[in-house]
């Protein structure tokens, strides 16, 4: 855990001002949300329960009275999200993306509660080269969680429209690699919004995938917690930089009946969060290199930060599901 740089804090505050509002008068107001965002850099744990926000630092969780902690984490399902490892990237912003991915794995292995599995939300590789995927596979083999679920980023489907990705990771998936699975009563949905992108557009899910999604969630009870994960944000973070998905509104319309929906994305190499009605949107940091806050630079290119600061802007997301409480608490921890 480490403190964020001043500029990072400034950007977090900014993002909150832009993005956070109490859409459904559900008690998640801006002030409460600011409190929630405080953990993004400082390593706290946040739970929204029955519309009431509660947050804990990871350190505090570890120090909690065992009985209290057991109560807080009863029936939990935990997993870790990593994203944007960009294996093969070697420019100034981070000449050692293998090293920072390894650091993420060490961090995951050191968590007080071992996550049951990992989610990788895309841009595994930088240039879709076989050796890049191989290196990531090798590094992640050292992670305690043995189950890893992937969705592709645009960097994973270069030149072959995702064939290689499907061969490596797409077993049992549909279409360009979308799928769903259940863990302890939570329904997870992995979506692909990085293929067949149209000129001038954003991320795209496409009609075939949307039809599949509608059918996939149809038989589920509204009380089933959903976790939807995809590479490009399924909310309009900053369309000017392509940080959004053209047909995400249609996808989310199928999820309206559910009481708890969490959307996990990568792509923008920074942590942002937004609550809108029943949906909590969350983007994860990159294990490779940070990108600027929306609109705060000429382009979304890699942000060069001093080497000693790099690990403080890279990270992993640790997600804990609290059974029966209709909420997911998310905590981001940085690598430093």
């Amino acid at each position, binding site marked *: 855990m480490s403190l964020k740089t001043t500029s990072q804090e400034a950007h977090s505050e900014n993002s909150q001002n832009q993005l956070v509002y109490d859409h459904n008068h559900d008690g998640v107001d801006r002030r409460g949300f600011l409190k929630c965002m405080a953990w993004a850099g400082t390593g706290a744990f946040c739970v929204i329960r029955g519309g009431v926000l509660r947050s804990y630092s990871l350190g505090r969780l570890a120090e909690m009275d065992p009985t209290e902690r057991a109560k807080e984490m009863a029936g939990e399902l935990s997993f870790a999200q990593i994203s944007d490892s960009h294996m093969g990237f070697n420019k100034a912003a981070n000449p050692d993306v293998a090293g920072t991915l390894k650091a993420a794995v060490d961090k995951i292995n050191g968590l007080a509660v071992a996550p049951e599995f990992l989610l990788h939300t895309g841009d595994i590789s930088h*240039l879709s080269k076989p050796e890049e995927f191989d290196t990531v596979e090798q590094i992640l083999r050292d992670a305690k969680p043995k189950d890893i679920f992937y969705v592709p980023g645009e960097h994973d489907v270069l030149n072959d429209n995702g064939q290689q990705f499907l061969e490596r990771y797409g077993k049992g998936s549909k279409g360009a690699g979308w799928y769903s699975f259940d863990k302890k009563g939570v329904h997870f949905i992995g979506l692909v919004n990085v293929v067949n992108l149209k000129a*001038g557009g954003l991320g795209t899910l496409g009609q075939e995938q949307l039809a599949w999604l509608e059918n996939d969630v149809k038989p589920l009870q509204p009380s089933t917690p959903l976790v939807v994960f995809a590479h490009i944000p399924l909310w309009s973070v900053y369309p000017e930089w392509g940080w959004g998905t053209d047909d995400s509104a249609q996808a989310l319309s199928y999820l309206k009946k559910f009481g708890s929906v969490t959307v996990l994305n990568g792509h923008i190499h920074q942590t942002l969060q937004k609550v809108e009605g029943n949906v909590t949107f969350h983007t994860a940091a990159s294990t490779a290199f940070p990108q600027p806050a929306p609109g705060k630079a000429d382009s*979304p290119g890699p942000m060069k930060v001093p080497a000693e600061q790099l690990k403080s802007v890279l990270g992993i997301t640790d997600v804990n599901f609290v059974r029966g409480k209709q909420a997911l608490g998310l905590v981001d921890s940085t690598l430093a």
Partner: protein
Amino acid sequence: MRRSVSFAVLSALGLLGMSALTAPPKNLAILAAQKAETAEVKIDNFSFGPATLTVPAGTTVTWTNRDDIPHTVTSSDDPKLFKSKVLDTDEKFSFTFSKAGTYSYFCSIHPKMTAKVIVQ
């Protein structure tokens, strides 16, 4: 006399030589035209520059990626007239536009990056 004949012959040869030398300007014109028929587009900061490039028919356009992030040069037409492989930093792609028209293209990785080539 003989001298003057040979001088005349030499002069004639000289003239021939001159006419042989008048040919190169035509070749030079072609060379000049060929020189005009290449153009450059740079990819910087997630954008194509210039965003609109106007060139005569027959021009070969070369794109160079100067970003730290890979991009592609992909025709927006269906079917696609051209599509580069992914271009890493400093990699290039060239395409020759033989017919007049407006050719829109984009980066298939970052589709917000759009630009066009107008061929006259």
